[in-house]
């Protein structure tokens, strides 16, 4: 059986805020999405390479 390097098979830690309750993993995904979105917009794009849209 191939074992993962990090074992995530334990009950999730949750983030509670008022009535919001979200697993840490999901919060990480959402936060990373927002960061990636902002970085994608702000990061300088190499000019005249034309290899990525």
């Amino acid at each position: 059986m191939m074992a993962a390097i990090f074992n995530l098979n334990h009950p999730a830690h949750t983030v509670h805020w008022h009535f919001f309750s979200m697993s840490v993993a999901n919060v990480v995904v959402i936060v990373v999405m927002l960061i990636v979105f902002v970085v994608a917009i702000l990061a300088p794009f190499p000019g005249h390479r034309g290899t990525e849209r």
Partner: protein
Amino acid sequence: MSRESRRREDETYREWKGAYKPYDILREATIALGVVLGLALVLTILFSSPDLKPSTVQTWARSDPVDFVTTATTELDGSSAIGGYGPPYNSASDGQNIWFIHLAKWFGIAHPINTAQDFVLAPLHSLTAQPALTAAVSMYEAAPANSQTAWTGAYEKALGNASANPDGSIKVKPGNYGPLPTMMNSLLTFAQSGGLDGALLTSKQFYQTDYTKPLLFMADGGVLTNRAQQQHLLGTQWGMMNETGSYPGQVWLWLYTFWYQIKPFSTSTNADILVMAVMGVLSILFVMVPFLPGVRDLPRRVPIYKRIWRDHYRTVGASGA
């Protein structure tokens, strides 16, 4: 913005007549494929994926025989969740509705389930060479309805204080339960042997892929709910978004599960159809964004686009040509 000015604007943006630069679309797609494949591989090597073994009627009956027998008794008298569910399983209720819209009722009983027959009586009938059991089942089926209800009611009450013996059987305070103890002890033994899993699955035909009956039976008890609570999958735990363990789940369902947490949805018996209706409307609006006044104009008013196209604006100046 007037319709005329909107039409003019649409013509402005229809075709780009300005400068182009070299671009290799196939190379870009190949690089992107490599990036995504690489990310998927890294995540797989780091974290793998979850695979909690399924519960079975057998494991349920062995780990919590009192809960199993209690559930079976409520199936017998129709007081279980599925017993009173309504369409598509039975006509015990009308199902959920919004005002005059009874979608569940209109679509009818598509997956008929008679909880007493399907979960208790038919499996017991299939057991042979047990004259005491056969007599008990006959006695129950021949009895008038009020006797049956009296037996199941008394038995369910007693089961509230029952306990499990080390050998897997249950100990219930003596009382007037009619043939129920004989029936339920046989059903419990049948379940603990693994036979009931198969009987519920193949009741219609040999080749089966429809797990509706064993799943609904287990869902009426506590076996799935207890595991779900440990895994933070309950509705009150925003479980719809979650995966078992500490894995990321279905983040895209955030708005769907959100409604269930607030009134009026959280306290309504029609919560499901209400949430589906709200999400249905929002989905249609989402598809129709280009035509929604206000929503379609917001990007123009929020200067995110100025950051996205800053190189272009710097190059061409104010006219945007």
